[in-house]
């Protein structure tokens, strides 16, 4: 499968580059529209770059106006919506859930991988079986529960079900099977308590899996949409995806504003991805490993 001839290799690059451009074009379009001068947002044919960049040089006399117009979408967004609030809500909920999941799933995964106790297999298979059940099945019962517990329109309604997700238990268990039991026994012989063994031996060894689980949890919670849109009604409590949906409902045709909102929501995930790319890749390939 090695390509030796350089014409083939050039063709490969061309095909890949063209496809990559097509793939990234919509994302580019978010930012390009967000920064487009309002007069050019709707033009035939569409302007491929924010025209402010050009006009800045061709119309030096009105530069400050051009800068203002370029960022007017963000200006309007920050001025007339709760976007910072939504941003904060999404951020803190994602962090709380991620930290919680890391604790809970590492402990549970450790017990399932390294402890031999009655009921272990039953619990493990119960967890795996529920992973096969699509989330839509539990929407209605969860909704009724949340209502009965008085959690409707609170962030608890998001945090508690998110903390219950079991994919991480499965992932941590699979990873911890590869930790040699001798290390744990050695710690025990040295007189370390159960908790100390866990905290000083197991957790450091599980760091790569923790990084992967943390990143995927953060991403899923940050992007989650279906459940938040069901349980949140109060604009102050919205997360970013829910806020964006209502923004769109209220400004169906104001694309500069909509794309400014989309850009604000997209940037954090893009940065997280760039910083932790290798963990994303590792995480995906762990998911494919068969038991």
């Amino acid at each position, binding site marked *: *499968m090695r390509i030796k001839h350089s014409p083939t290799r050039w063709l490969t690059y061309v095909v890949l580059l063209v496809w990559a451009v097509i793939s990234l074009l919509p994302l580019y379009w978010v930012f390009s529209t967000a920064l487009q001068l309002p007069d050019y947002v709707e033009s035939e044919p569409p302007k491929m770059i924010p025209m402010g960049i050009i006009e800045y040089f061709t119309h030096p006399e009105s530069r400050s106006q051009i800068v203002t117009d370029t960022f007017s979408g963000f200006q309007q967004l920050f001025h007339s919506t709760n976007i910072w609030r939504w941003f904060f809500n999404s951020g803190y909920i994602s962090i709380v859930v991620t930290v919680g999941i890391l604790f809970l799933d590492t402990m549970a995964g450790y017990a399932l991988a390294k402890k031999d106790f009655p009921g272990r297999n039953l619990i493990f298979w119960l967890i795996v079986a529920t992973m*096969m059940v699509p989330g839509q099945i539990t929407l209605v019962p969860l*909704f009724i529960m949340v209502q009965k517990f008085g959690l409707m329109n609170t962030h608890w309604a998001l945090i508690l079900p998110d903390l219950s997700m079991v994919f991480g238990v499965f992932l941590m268990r699979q990873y911890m099977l590869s930790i040699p039991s001798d290390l744990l026994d050695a710690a025990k012989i040295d007189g370390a308590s159960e908790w100390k063994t866990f905290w000083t031996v197991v957790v450091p060894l599980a760091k790569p899996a923790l990084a992967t689980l943390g990143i995927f949890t953060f991403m899923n919670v940050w992007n989650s949409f*279906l459940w938040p849109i069901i349980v949140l009604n109060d604009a102050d409590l919205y997360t970013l995806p829910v806020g964006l949906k209502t923004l769109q409902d209220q400004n169906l045709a104001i694309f500069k504003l909509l794309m400014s909102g989309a850009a604000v929501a997209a940037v954090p*995930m893009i940065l997280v991805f760039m910083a932790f790319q290798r963990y994303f890749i590792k995480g995906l390939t762990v998911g494919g490993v068969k038991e």
Partner: protein
Amino acid sequence: MSSPHATKSHLDAQATTQPATRRRSSLLREMWKQRAAYLFLMPKLILFTAFILIPIIWAFVLAFQEYGVFGSEWVGLKNFESVAKSELFRSALWNTLQYTVVTVPLQVLIALGLATLIHPLGRLGQSFFRGAFYLPTVTSMVIIAMVWRWVYNYRYGLFNYMLSIFGLPTPDWLNQSSTALWALIIMSVLIPPGVGIIMYLAAMGSIPEQLYEAAEIDGANGFQRWWRITVPLLKPTTLYLTMLSLIGSFQVFTQILLMTGGGPGHATETLVSLVYKTAFRDLEFGLASAQAIVLFVITLLFGIAQYWLLYRKAEED
């Protein structure tokens, strides 16, 4: 495991109670000895039981009930009968099937094709394209759907502009019953299958080089080597990805809600958008649960069918 067993049987031998009680007490003793394990497991297990296990069981109960705030009534199979008779459910099912049958194979094939092209590149090329194709996957579907609604704009959208360059017809994609579903399908196919590419690349990296060398000595050309060695050895990955893609496309929802709302008419109503509307717009909780269960069963059947197809195919080869 050997030492706890030894102690246990030693203790058992001393006990003079009846066998059944004795077994139970030794089980309890074993559980007590492993109490740390239960403590480690407990917090997650409580949450899991409360927010996953009970809701799943409850969904199956609800599907046989007419839900009311002041008490529910058993109605037997009535909800499932309504599902079977419903014109709307059938068209949602049909839309979902069309969407699935087109997008799933294309997503997997595109992932395979792109991974095949990326794999022989050097380290730098690999990580560049891997990143470029994965980036849209980390972006929220809400954002992607919002921008695609703009891309599909009838007059000013990027998509029709591209079509017009090639002299192709430029319909009002999202506002016509005949094109709306296709617009959603095209969009899913053009979003790069980032997960698939990364998993295929990982799997390709683990195929031993000697296989290709041996085939080369036997005179196999590049395509033959790919078709006879790479593709068959990637079968587990293909199976896994098809399964993922299948589950994803049966649950397609976010882009429906943001781009078409299921319309025009019900032209893009899918199973999950229907469940959502039945539950949270019409407040028909029993019926919505029945719909969700039917969706689950259909997904399961498709999953089993494609598992069987791909594996039977694997054995024939």
